C-alpha cells in the first residue's frame, strides 16, 4: 500500500527512510549507549528533535492548504495551539493533588482564581481518549466553521489570509483572559506525567519522540494519498483555475472546507505532541508571528511537495535554535531576510533545487491512472 502511495514521490521515499532510520537510531543512542560515550545522545536533544518533528507535521498541514489548494493561511498556529491546549488540559488533570495547592480536582490556577468547581468544558479531560478526540475535534470544528463561512462568501487571496491572521490573533487575546479558564497568560504547565509515565523520564521522552515521528509519517502518507487521488487533482485545479473548476461542476467551497479541515486536524495533532515535550502551552502559541513562521518554513522547503515542508520546517528550526543561541535579537531579521531571499531566488524552495535533477533522471510526470 505504501509503495502505491509513494509511487511517484522520490522525495517522500527518501524522507521517510531517513525518518525511519532516525526513529530507530536516536532511541538506541539515548537509552542503550552509556552517557560517557561520545555516541550518546542526551535526552534534551531527543526532545528537541521531537519538537522539530511536530513542526514538520505542522508544515505538512500548511503545505496542504497553501501548496495544493492555494490558500495562504496565516492562522494555522491557532489549530496547532488548540490541539496543544486539548493535550495540556489532559496533562493538567493528570497532576491531580500534586499541585502547589494540593487540590485533587482543580488545577492550581483555578484554585488561585478562587473557583469552586471544574468548569463544564474541562469535564472529560481526565480521560486520555477524550482528550485525543478533542485534539482532533476542536481544531477540525473551528476550521470547518471558519472555512464554511469564509469560502461560501468567496473570500479569497489576501483577504482570506488577513482573516486567518485575525482569527489566531483573536484567539490569543481570548486565551490570555483568566476568566476563559485556560490559565490566562501563564497557560498550562508544571505537567507531571502522561498515561502514568513521568514526563521527566528518558523513556517517556523517547516514546514521545517516536510518536512524533510516527505521526509525521502517517500524516505525510495521508496527505500524499489524498493528493494522489482525484480529490487531489481537483484541489490543484481549484488552486490553478478556481472558476474553471466551478464551470465543470465542482462545488469549490465544499472542497476547500474539507481540505482546510483536514489540514487543521493535522496541525492539532502536531500541537498535541508538541506540548508534552516542551512542557507548556500558553497563549503565545496563538501569536500571529508563529503562523507566519510556519509559512516561511514551507516556502523555504518548497511548496506543493510535502517533503519540502518537512525539510523546511526542520532546517529553519535548526537554524533558529543555533542562531537564537548565538544572537537572540537577530533571529527575526534573519528569518525575514531568508523569506525575501527564497522568494526572489528560490521560488520553488529547496525542493526546487532537486526538481531539475529529477527531470534529468528521466522522471515521467504523473498521469491519470
Amino acid at each position, binding site marked *: 500500500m505504501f509503495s502505491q502511495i509513494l509511487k511517484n514521490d522520490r522525495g517522500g521515499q527518501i524522507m521517510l527512510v531517513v525518518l525511519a532510520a532516525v526513529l530507530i537510531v536516536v532511541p538506541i543512542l539515548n537509552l542503550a549507549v552509556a552517557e560517557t560515550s561520545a555516541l550518546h545522545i542526551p535526552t534534551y536533544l531527543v526532545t528537541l528533535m521531537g519538537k522539530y518533528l511536530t513542526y514538520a507535521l505542522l508544515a505538512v498541514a500548511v503545505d496542504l492548504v497553501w501548496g495544493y489548494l492555494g490558500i495562504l493561511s496565516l492562522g494555522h498556529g491557532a489549530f496547532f495551539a488548540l490541539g496543544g491546549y486539548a493535550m495540556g488540559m489532559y496533562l493538567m488533570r493528570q497532576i491531580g493533588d500534586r499541585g502547589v495547592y494540593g487540590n485533587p480536582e482543580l488545577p492550581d490556577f483555578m484554585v488561585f482564581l478562587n473557583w469552586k468547581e471544574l468548569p463544564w468544558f474541562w469535564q472529560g479531560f481526565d480521560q486520555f481518549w477524550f482528550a485525543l478526540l478533542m485534539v482532533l475535534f476542536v481544531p477540525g470544528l473551528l476550521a470547518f466553521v471558519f472555512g464554511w463561512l469564509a469560502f461560501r462568501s468567496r473570500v479569497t487571496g489576501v483577504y482570506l489570509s488577513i482573516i486567518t491572521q485575525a482569527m489566531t490573533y483573536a484567539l490569543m487575546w481570548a486565551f490570555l483572559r483568566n476568566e476563559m479558564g485556560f490559565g490566562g497568560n501563564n497557560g498550562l504547565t508544571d505537567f507531571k506525567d502522561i498515561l502514568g509515565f513521568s514526563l521527566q523520564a528518558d523513556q517517556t521522552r523517547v516514546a514521545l519522540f517516536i510518536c512524533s515521528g510516527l505521526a509525521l509519517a502517517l500524516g505525510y502518507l495521508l496527505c500524499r494519498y489524498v493528493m494522489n487521488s*482525484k480529490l487531489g487533482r481537483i484541489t490543484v*485545479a481549484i488552486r*490553478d*483555475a478556481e472558476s*474553471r473548476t466551478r*464551470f465543470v*461542476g465542482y*462545488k469549490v467551497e465544499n472542497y476547500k472546507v474539507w481540505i482546510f479541515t483536514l489540514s487543521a486536524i493535522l496541525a492539532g495533532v502536531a500541537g498535541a505532541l508538541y506540548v508534552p515535550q516542551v512542557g507548556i502551552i500558553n497563549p503565545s502559541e496563538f501569536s500571529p508571528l508563529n503562523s507566519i513562521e510556519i509559512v516561511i518554513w514551507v516556502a523555504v522547503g518548497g511548496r506543493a511537495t510535502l517533503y519540502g515542508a518537512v525539510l523546511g520546517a526542520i532546517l529553519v528550526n535548526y537554524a533558529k535554535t543555533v542562531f537564537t543561541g548565538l544572537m537572540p535579537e537577530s533571529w527575526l531579521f534573519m528569518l525575514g531576510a531568508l523569506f525575501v531571499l527564497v522568494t526572489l531566488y528560490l521560488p520553488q524552495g529547496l525542493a526546487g533545487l532537486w526538481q531539475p535533477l529529477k527531470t534529468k533522471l528521466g522522471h515521467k510526470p504523473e*498521469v491519470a*491512472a
Partner: protein
Amino acid sequence: MSEGEGAHFYREGALDTSHKAILYLEGLNVSFDGFKAINDLNLYIDAGELRCIIGPNGAGKTTMMDIITGKTKPDSGKAFFGQTIDLLKLSEPEIANAGIGRKFQKPTVFESHSVAENLELAMKGDKRVWFSLRAKLDHEQKALIEETLETIGLTAQYHQQAGALSHGQKQWLEIGMLLVQKPYLLLVDEPVAGMTHQEMERTAELLKSLAGKHSVVVVEHDMEFVRSIANKVTVLHQGSVLAEGSMDEVQQNPRVVEVYLGV
C-alpha cells in the same frame, strides 16, 4: 453512465424541451457601475440548434454567457434552461451539472495537469468531495478520454502538461473538456482565436457535427468561420439583439452594416 433522453438532472427535475427551445433569455438587464452591458436582451435557442452570435467588442456576448452559466447575476429578467430549470436560482456547478458546458474566451485549462487529467476532471459524473477521494476511471471512461483525444487531435499529447500546449491546442483541449462533460447546451466563446486556417476548418467540422445531438451557441469574430458553420446568426449590439437571421440576411440588414459589418 450512458447519455440520453432519460438522463438524470440535478435538482430541478428533468430538462424539458417540449416547446422546442432549450434556452430562454427574456428581458435581461445587467449594468456594471451604471454602464448597461446587457440591455433588455431576448434570445431563444432551439434544442439541437447551432447558433452563432456576433457583435462588436463590448457588445455583451461574454456577459450573456456569464449570466447563463451563473457567473453574473442579472439585475432583472429571466433565464430558463428548458421549460423548468431556472438558471438564475442555480450556482455555477449546479448549472454545469444540469448540462450547460462552457468554453471561455481566453482558453482556461488546468495548466499543471496532464491533457488526459484535464479530461478526467471535466468528465460527467459524481462531483462530490467524498466520491472524488475514491474515484477511479473505469474502462468506459478511459475509452471516452481516448476517443475524445482522437476527436480533438491531442492523442499524442496524452501525458503532456496542459500548460505546455500551444494556444490552439489549449482551445482544442477546452473543447474536449466540454465534450466529456456531455452537456445538452454548449456555449463556445471565440473558439478559433489563435488557430491556423487548417485548425479552424477542423473546428468548424467538429462544431457542426455536434449540432443536432447538442445545442451549440458560438460567439465568434471571424466572419469567414461564422459563415462556414451557421444557419442562423444573431447580432448583438450594446447589450441587445440587433438582428437575427441567416448570414446573408444579417449582412444585408442596413442597421447591422452600420454598426458592425460595414466597418
